[in-house]
């Protein structure tokens, strides 16, 4: 078992087989630096719980493919990314810091899927972006590439 400590001083015990999906921790274990608690100063306990949930589910990914549990894993992944934007970005930052490639890919893909086909207005609202361009500047950008801002597929709803 490996002990991880979040930045709000909560400790979590994780199986080594699960935690080595993080390249960073794997390196630490290989170098014998993980004998006591591993402090994770960039990750709060709420985010760390999510990451550990993912790691535990994804142990032995190869085995899942053999036993036909792939669908189960896919369903888990779909449920897993069903979270708010800020939570999602916290998990992305944690996955980036811990270097967990699959988790990074999953969460970034989810972010991209949410932005897919969205109108400018919808993206601004979803991500709380304050538009600091003047009206003239905005019009100029649109006039340069009008094709990018029109089309039947553009979706103005916010989710």
């Amino acid at each position, binding site marked *: 078992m490996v002990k991880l400590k979040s930045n709000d001083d909560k400790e979590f015990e994780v199986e080594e087989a699960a935690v080595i999906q993080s390249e960073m921790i794997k390196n630490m274990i290989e170098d014998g630096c993980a004998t006591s608690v591993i402090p994770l100063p960039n990750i709060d306990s709420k985010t760390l719980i999510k990451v550990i949930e993912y790691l535990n589910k994804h142990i032995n990914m190869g085995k899942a493919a053999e036993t036909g549990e792939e669908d189960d894993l896919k369903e888990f992944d779909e449920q897993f990314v069903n979270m708010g934007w800020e939570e999602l970005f916290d998990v992305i*930052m944690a996955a980036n810091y811990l270097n967990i490639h699959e988790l990074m890919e999953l969460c970034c893909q989810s972010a*991209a899927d949410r932005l897919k086909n969205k109108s400018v207005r919808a993206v601004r609202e979803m991500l*709380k*972006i304050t538009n600091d361009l003047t009206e003239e500047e*905005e019009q100029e950008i649109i006039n340069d590439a009008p094709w990018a801002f029109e089309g039947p597929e553009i979706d103005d709803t916010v989710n």
Partner: protein
Amino acid sequence: MKDLGDLNFFLGIEVARSEEGIVLNQKKVLSQYMHSPKTSHMEVALRVVRYIKSNPGLGLFMLAEASNKLTAYCDSDWGSCLQTKRSVAGIHNSNFTLHRSSINYIMAGGDPLSDLPRSILLYILSMLPNGKQVVRTSVLSRRWRFLWNSVPLSLNFEFPNRGSIESTLDYVTSIHRELYYLRSCEKIRKFRVLLYRYDERYAKDVDLWKNLTEEVLEKVLSGCPNLECLELDTIRGRWQSSWRLEISSVKLRKLIIQDDYVQNPDFCPSFKFLFRHGEHNLDKEFIYLKGLLHSVAHVKNLELSPWCIQCMSTLALEGWQSPPSSWKFLKRNTHVEQLDFPGIYSFLQSSSDLETLVIEWNNSTPTVSFL
């Protein structure tokens, strides 16, 4: 006052300059407590070493391009430094992002996505399905204005509807319009055009796209002298018969040419196209293959398409001997027909170093490999 030249060391921070920007590095600061070290310092030092080990070469890079926007945070991390108890302020400029806890962007009223490091932001944007959607982000706010330029783009041009001649013309025009705008883009990862109705009148357009594709691939091949592995997956197109693949890398150890010939009859990879289009000019195709085999003679792992083996068989029957090679691993991924054996025999004769030969059957019979 004396001019001391370019800044290279200031307040314990080392500065390295290049034309693109400035790198700041503060490894000298770490020696602050060396005169009376305590166990706690040792622990901190170990943590720093662990961090550095997993992130070698990390530093701050400030772009040479100016951005005048500076966002400052006051007391964002009050009292966290136990030694000085000073309040900590953070400075953020779109050129570089400092690590901050999530509370900061709520205080600053910023947007969460823009707060992600630039590299992650670009990664997310690269997952958008087409260039149009990436370009659309340029109008979100000032920070997003030129971000799309650095996104590795996937250009997917899907034919909108299988309609009239006019709509095909519109479609072709729209591709050109989009490509013209995207010319400043740094990376193109994927370029795909579906042209439902090919017509002689579009020959020039197709030529242009073809040149673009070849240019990209040529850049990849000639720009990578250390290229070790090259996987070409289903290069398709009616122009392929005149296309030359020049690999300049001497280190190439793995070349895979994928062929889906058997599974998908409609799925025509380059070699099948070569075969088909060259029906009346088979000699030309043979010369091409001979050249290719010569140029990959130093390759260690080789997978061959069925078409390759078929052609080699024909050549072998004509008395041609495949060039001496250092192939060690050879794979062919479809079932073997009797006609293929002269080809296999021919390269077995010339490959004295061959260690493994894998022949895979596709119709669920087991993979056979022998040493």
